[in-house]
């Protein structure tokens, strides 16, 4: 028995040694620091061959135009800083299978012609950009034609105060890419937090996007993506997504997007998508929907928004189920009479009906669109008369005898009690 345990210890030790030394077996390690062989990241990267590791240990490197043309790993230890000093793009990745980890990359000037970024991946696959900090740049991390790439754990911070939209770049910009993973990043102070164009089958999760000048998340023509557990808050115009199919948005939080043209979530020409278990809190408009069809909007919380949902009449066949509407100034408003949309089993805090058969479902239908909300939609200045006694009276009369509000927008089975989404939210988190 004693012998056996001895063997086991030796065997484990051997394995460990082999594991630790294995990278050197695949390629060399080029060290960069003030006292090392290399003093310049650029020089070390140029010398590196395929499979090598360039290890940068601390220090500030005033360099830009670093081009990675071999499948290497560029790793930073003890937080090395690469300062571009506003002289163009800093790191350009022109090879597949590159790993970039642990750097602080800063200072890229505005460049309208070249769209300079701190880190750019051009036309190569399987890139990993992990745990970097990008400060004060025009574009932050820019992926173009970079299939199956991972952008994880990065912090991209810009300075947007006092700047106009056109002089700002996007924090994470992805273009024409398939199967990207964007996760655990924190982006702020840019034009758009996360920008997708022609990006397909990608996953965006656990990111925090806040205080961006325009949108927290912006995507167009990007089918088949999944967005989960992200937080989008205090962005200039919230989140806007357009011209896309087959999207899943789950467990995201959209909050504090305030302003005349700010939306928690703006959906334009989105179809066949699922919006589940999200929280919309304190937005001027929770969800604004235009020409969007066949959406499943279920189990969301709409809390203290100006308008919870603005459903334009161009939307068809959308389903709203099991949502909570609490403390919104207007629950649903519309500009005409949208057809074939289904409201079912939602909880409305303004519902005044009764439940005689005790099945927890109200016996009288609830009409979420009020006469006054339609008036406000038509004549915006009349918002000044909110909570006026006359308005309440008008709404009450209209509820008893509906004649102006659209017949089709009605919840026939409103819930009597607020639906508890928190428990299944935790469950889903555990499952993942």
């Amino acid at each position, binding site marked *: 028995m004693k012998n056996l345990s001895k063997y086991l210890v030796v065997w484990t030790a051997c394995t460990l040694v082999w594991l630790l030394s294995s990278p050197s077996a695949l390629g060399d390690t080029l060290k960069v620091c003030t006292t090392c062989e290399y003093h310049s990241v650029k020089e070390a990267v140029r010398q590196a061959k395929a499979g090598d590791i360039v290890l940068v240990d601390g220090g500030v490197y005033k360099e830009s135009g670093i081009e990675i043309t071999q499948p290497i790993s560029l790793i930073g230890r003890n937080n090395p800083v690469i300062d571009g000093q506003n002289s163009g793009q800093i790191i350009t990745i022109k090879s597949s299978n590159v790993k970039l980890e642990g750097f602080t990359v800063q200072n890229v000037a505005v460049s309208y012609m070249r769209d300079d970024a701190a880190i750019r991946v051009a036309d190569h696959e399987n890139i990993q950009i992990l745990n970097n900090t990008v400060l004060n740049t025009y574009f932050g991390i820019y992926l173009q034609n970079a299939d199956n790439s991972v952008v994880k754990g990065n912090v991209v911070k810009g300075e947007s105060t006092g700047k106009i939209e056109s002089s700002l770049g996007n924090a994470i910009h992805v273009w024409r890419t398939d199967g990207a993973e964007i996760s655990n990043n924190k982006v702020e102070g840019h034009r758009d937090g996360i920008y997708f164009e022609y990006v397909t089958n990608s996953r965006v999760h656990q990111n925090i996007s806040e205080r961006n000048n325009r949108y927290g998340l912006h995507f167009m023509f990007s089918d088949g993506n999944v967005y989960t557990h992200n937080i989008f808050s205090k962005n200039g115009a919230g989140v806007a997504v357009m011209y896309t199919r087959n999207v899943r948005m789950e467990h995201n939080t959209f909050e504090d997007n305030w302003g005349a043209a*700010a939306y928690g979530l703006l959906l334009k020409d989105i179809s066949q998508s699922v919006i589940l278990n999200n929280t919309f809190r304190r937005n*001027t408009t929770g969800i604004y929907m235009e020409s969007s069809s066949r959406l499943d909007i279920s189990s969301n919380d709409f809390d203290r928004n100006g*308008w919870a949902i603005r459903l334009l009449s161009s939307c068809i066949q959308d389903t709203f189920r099991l949502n909570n509407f609490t403390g919104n100034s207007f629950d649903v408003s519309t500009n005409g009479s949208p057809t074939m949309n289904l409201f079912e089993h939602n909880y409305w805090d303004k519902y005044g009906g009764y439940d005689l058969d005790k099945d927890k479902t109200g016996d009288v239908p609830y009409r979420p669109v009020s006469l006054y909300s339609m008036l406000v939609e038509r004549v915006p*200045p*009349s918002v*000044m*008369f909110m909570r006026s006694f*006359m308005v*309440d009276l008008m709404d009450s009369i209209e509820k008893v005898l509906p004649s102006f509000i659209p017949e089709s927008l009605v919840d026939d089975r409103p819930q009597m009690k607020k639906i508890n989404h928190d428990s299944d939210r935790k469950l889903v988190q555990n499952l993942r």
Partner: protein
Amino acid sequence: MNKIIKYVLYDIVRSKIVVAYTLFLLLLSIGLFNLGGSADKGLLSLLNLVLLTVPLISIVFATTHFYNSYEFMELLVSQPIRRSKIFLSEYLGVSLSLSAAFLIGVGIPVLLFAPGATGLYLVLTGLFITFIFVALAFLASVITRDKAKGIGIALMLWFYFALIYDGIVLFILYSFGDYPLEYATLALTALNPVDLGRVMVLLNLDVSAMMGYTGALYKSIFGSGWGVGIAFVVLVLWVLVPLLTSRRVFQKRDL
């Protein structure tokens, strides 16, 4: 003048209606704050009630009080006291007692349950509305000798400001919806003290909805110091205009 105010106040307190009013407001505010759950919700319900009941009670109470103290005023007029002094003393007596009732009934619960700028605006609005509607009541009372007619006019005034006015304005807005109406709406709200008070409180309460495009404009106007200043100046005008008009009528009239 102080002596007359003292007598008026004594008379009012003895009638116990003001005490009942205080208790009514106190019960209402405490009840609403405990019922609503959040302080904001309580303030919102309270706002609705304040804007509806305070003008009504102020105007009805002030009118009946004016007619009931007619003999007292006739007595005073026979003394070497100036008529405007008598009139202003009556006005201050009624409005001070009603606003004291409001301060105790609403001010204290607001201070306890929802202290802050919104609560302050609500209390200030309520006080101004008390002063304004007592002035309007006195205007209604000096117009006619007939008590029934006077109360009728007072009630009509309340009905107009609390209900009809908003209806008319909404109708105008709807009819002229194709035109830019932002500033017109602003002017129209200033023409009704109840609306003006409501808007001032709302801009603090329904923040989200008020951040829509029109709301943002008003927010920028009422959010700034001078905007609030102008709103209060307009409210003061709403006190002074009916008060001075009715004083003038009272001075010249054959009692």
